[in-house]
């Protein structure tokens, strides 16, 4: 479960302060398939990076699975991401010099899992996303959809309860995007908390909770509306 309260994020550029997030508060329950939507530049990526501890908020509270992570330092966050958060990016973010298998195994390296076990778990992960026959391919030898599957396998290999995806279908054609979305939907059904940043209405439609951000504020949160009704 993700609970953030009054999160503020300021950027300083040329001694001018820009408020990108201005008091964001929401709760995403465990096992939810949630979408964060909004126009370009509205702060969606910044928000997702804060949820994953890649960026730190200027102010605000953050409870992740009931634990206060507001004041984690970068290395505590590294540990947290390694164990509880899987990341999927728009541009896949695979390491070009590594095979699909080695890319998938990467989070396990930082858990100190022995190489032999890493290989077995990475291969299982690739099988699960239908890429069992592409273990030894480099990212450049794979299509965009296949690369994103590798990235999802990598995000899942350590079995984290939370999955954060920043425009995961943004670089894919429509049909492939729907396939990736279906994988993410099934994961939420298996109990994982899945947060997707998107500006595709079609993607948002599949999600039970849709959080719309504009100018650093939340303008709609479908879950809250449901609960009020």
């Amino acid at each position, binding site marked *: 479960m993700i609970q953030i309260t009054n999160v503020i994020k300021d950027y300083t550029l040329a001694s001018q302060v820009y408020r990108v997030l201005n008091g964001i508060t929401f709760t995403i329950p465990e096992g939810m398939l949630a979408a964060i939507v909004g126009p370009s530049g509205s702060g969606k990526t910044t928000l997702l990076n804060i949820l994953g501890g*890649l*960026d730190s908020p200027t102010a605000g509270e953050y409870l992740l699975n009931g634990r206060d992570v507001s004041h984690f330092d970068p*290395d505590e966050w*590294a540990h947290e*991401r390694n*164990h509880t958060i899987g990341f999927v990016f728009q541009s896949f*973010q695979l390491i070009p010099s590594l095979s699909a298998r080695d890319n998938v195994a990467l989070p396990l390296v*930082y858990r*100190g899992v022995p190489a032999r076990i890493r290989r077995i778990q990475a291969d299982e992960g690739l099988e699960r996303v239908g890429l069992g026959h592409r273990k030894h391919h480099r990212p450049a030898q794979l299509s965009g959809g296949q690369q994103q599957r590798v990235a999802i396998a990598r995000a899942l290999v350590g079995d984290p309860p939370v999955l954060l995806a920043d425009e995961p279908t943004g670089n894919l054609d429509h049909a492939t995007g729907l396939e990736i979305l279906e994988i993410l939907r099934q994961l939420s059904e298996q109990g994982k908390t899945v947060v997707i940043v998107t500006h595709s209405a079609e993607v948002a439609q599949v999600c039970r909770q849709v959080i719309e951000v504009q100018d650093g504020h939340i303008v709609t949160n479908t879950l809250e509306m449901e609960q009020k009704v």
Partner: protein
Amino acid sequence: MTWSDGFSLAFHGMISNKLRAVLTMLGVIIGVAAVIVLVAIGQGAASIVSSRIETLGTNVIFVSPAAGTPFPMSETGIIAHALPFSVQVVPEMNTGGKVSTLSTEGTAQIAGTTSSYLRLGGISVAAGHFITPQEVSSAQHVAVLGANQALNLFGGQNPVGSSIMIMGQQFQVIGALNAVGQGPGASQDNEIFIPITSAQPLFGTTQLSQMIVKTSSPSQANLAADYLTNLYTNELGSSSAVNVASEDQVLQTLQATRATFTNLLAGTAAIALVVGGIGIMNIMLVSVTERTREIGIRRALGATREDILLQFLLESMIMSLSGGLIGVVAGLGIMNLIPLILKTPAVFSPSALILAFVFSTAVGLIFGLYPAIKASGLDPIHALRYDG
């Protein structure tokens, strides 16, 4: 991340661009090879001079020509006659060269001298006999082995009566010496003595390396040194054409030379290794920039700053240490060629080897630190956005 994963990651980082890695290592390779070779030459040179002083006693002076001053055998009589008291004058010519038996080979300091060398003291015969006056006058191909040479070439067997090849010619071993002892002065143990009359055609010169003059007391030695200095200054019009030195003077010169040499060596090695280190730092900085996005990805997946630091630090250390290893191999190779090319002995020194390894590891550590800190300090968000 486990240590073995860290090492394998760093190693793969290095071999993913082999040519670049080798070029980067070049500075360290040259630095380490230079240390080993220069130390070997220095040890070799020092061992010849100091051994004489330490084993020949305090009544001895050395007369040696400067480069270009003719110094043939006839000087023996001139020196003996110039002094108002009786002395022993022993001529000597030296060179480094290859020696071999049927089964082994090595290098030795070859000394051509006369039978009177034994009477200078300091050495004693363990087996057989020293060179005799008859063997000198008839230019016999006979040889007396220093203790180490006897051991190296014959492995503890009695060498007397065997044949050995010295600089391509066959010699009969007629004697072996007792060990002079340990320490930097033990180089007579590494020598092979042959009649000076056989040394002349073998070395291709009649020029003596030096004359050893033995007097009956240290004060007489100082007196003889003054006499001979005057003699040569008057005769040749220059006080530097022939160098006359009593033991005291030689010791002082030797110590000064050694100090200079050590400083020079340290300086050369330091410069080479710093240049090598800068090369490594430069390439590691390039590597950090090239792999900015990779660093961001690793951080996003759970690498701590320490994991990233270690990855890059290990890579620069492995690179530097590999350079050191190649440098050691190259240095030892060159060292073995020195007696053939420069005609001076080269003495291997284990401490140079240890020094080389310690230095190359330290270079990798010191010069790898800044790039590694830079890599570990990258902001993961910026690193993920970086497109390079």
